[in-house]
């Protein structure tokens, strides 16, 4: 996606912290960087510097393919806050081909056609500075679209 193209659903810059900065910075360079445990080898979602499978504090980020399938979804008919005027839109669990099931939106699709098992790919959507929309994006977030 052209990083200066405005997404259809509302975006905002995610709050980063010591554990998640690498993940969000990865999105800005169009990479899905997810920690893998150095000790037991499990991929860890949501990103953290701790392995909930074995208790290790040693993890290394790896880039995932961004390919997956819809594990479950809902069409939200009434949005709240920034999403008040966005309905209908799709919230889904995407099962990444490497294993983790993660929540996000399915975009670029008629919500009525989304179905479990549907193949999807990650898209990285830019978050622009509203006062300087011509500047490079200040952040990026991950959504998914049908393959």
């Amino acid at each position: 996606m052209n990083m200066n193209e405005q997404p259809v659903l509302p975006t905002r810059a995610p709050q980063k912290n010591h554990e998640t900065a690498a993940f969000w910075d990865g999105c800005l360079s169009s990479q899905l960087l997810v920690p893998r445990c150095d000790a037991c080898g499990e991929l860890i979602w949501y990103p953290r510097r701790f392995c909930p499978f074995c208790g290790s504090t040693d993890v290394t980020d790896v880039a995932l393919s961004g390919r997956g399938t819809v594990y479950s979804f809902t069409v939200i008919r009434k949005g709240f806050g920034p999403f008040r005027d966005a309905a209908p839109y799709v919230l889904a669990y995407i099962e990444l081909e490497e294993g983790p099931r993660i929540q996000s939106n399915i975009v670029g699709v008629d919500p009525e056609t989304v179905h479990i098992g549907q193949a999807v790919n990650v898209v990285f959507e830019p978050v622009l500075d509203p006062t300087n929309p011509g500047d490079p994006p200040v952040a990026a977030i991950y959504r998914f679209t049908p393959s």
Partner: protein
Amino acid sequence: MSLRGAAFIAGAYEHPRRNIPDRTEAQIHAEVAVGALADAGLSFADVDAYYCAGDAPGFGPISMAEYLGLKCRTYDSTETGGSSYLVHVGHAAAAIAAGHASIALITLAGAPRNTMPSPGAAAAFNSAPESEFENLWGSSIVAQYALAAQRHMYEFGTTSAQLAEIKVAASIHAQHNPNAMLRDVVTVDDVLSSPMVADPLRRLDCCVVTDGGGALVVVSPEVAATLPRQCVKVLGQGEAAKNGNGGRVDLTHTGAVWSGPRAFEEAGVTVADIDYVSIYDSFTITVLITLEDLGFCAKGEGGRFVLDGRLVAPHGGLPFNTDGGGLCNNHPANRGGMTKVIEAVRQLRGEAHPAVQVPDCQIALAHGTGGSLATRMMSSTLILGVADA
């Protein structure tokens, strides 16, 4: 050590109102505490243990002990969302068994129809380590249950009409409850024609939003023996966390698959022994999956299990939520666990409405689900019995 028989519920009280614009949250806590203590035949001076959860204002037990004038030797603010109050009953029984308490007061109160969510609740949403991986997508509470419902339908062929049967049963019960928020009996067609909120859940698949609260008094066997009131025996309690599991979430089950067996084992009973169930009903799907997880039917069979009036009191195979539940009666402070215990106590005392009283109700199960079905939750199962159970 088993907690079977270690404690009794001597007092139970549900606030009669569902819209309370003229009370503070602390005031409603106090009103339900007064009600439960009066029900037990006890007073504030008798209370030596106090339990509250995230709905308590200010600094929880620190603030509430001062407001209520409590001088306890045990305080516990275990917060597991809507299941907190079932957990509190178990923890109170453990404290009593350990000799750290003899008369425990548990309160819940809130007024979400009239007050903004507490700052603490908003802070929890924003400060949780998982928050930014879930809060960017325009999610909602109902959406986090819809995801589970959609997957259940996909894997097991569960239908919206089957989910609607759960709401229908609750509404049949609620018509007899003069305090219920929704007293009209509804049909499956009524549910299916209500507006879609988040597919596949419609408006009538959702619980009510109510002000109010409730309280319980849990006492030692020695205290129970001195009280004129019919006391209900605590037979067993289990609790469990179920969550995203590092990215391996399985939407087809809840924490009840672990909390249930723990409670049944401690109580020394099986599903066949249960005469009445209070099942957490934030949404219809919550009930259906929980019934499967507790073993009342096989996984995936919940949709067929709830047909043919099985959940309808007094003569269905498994009467549930005879007060009308959260779907019709009350879901005070957006937390349904307290009222689940209260209606189970009514049933075991034979004090449910005569139209829904289960004949010869000896053993009841109450189950709470705190948090969210599609992400993370704390489940608690409580098994209660009549005094000689």
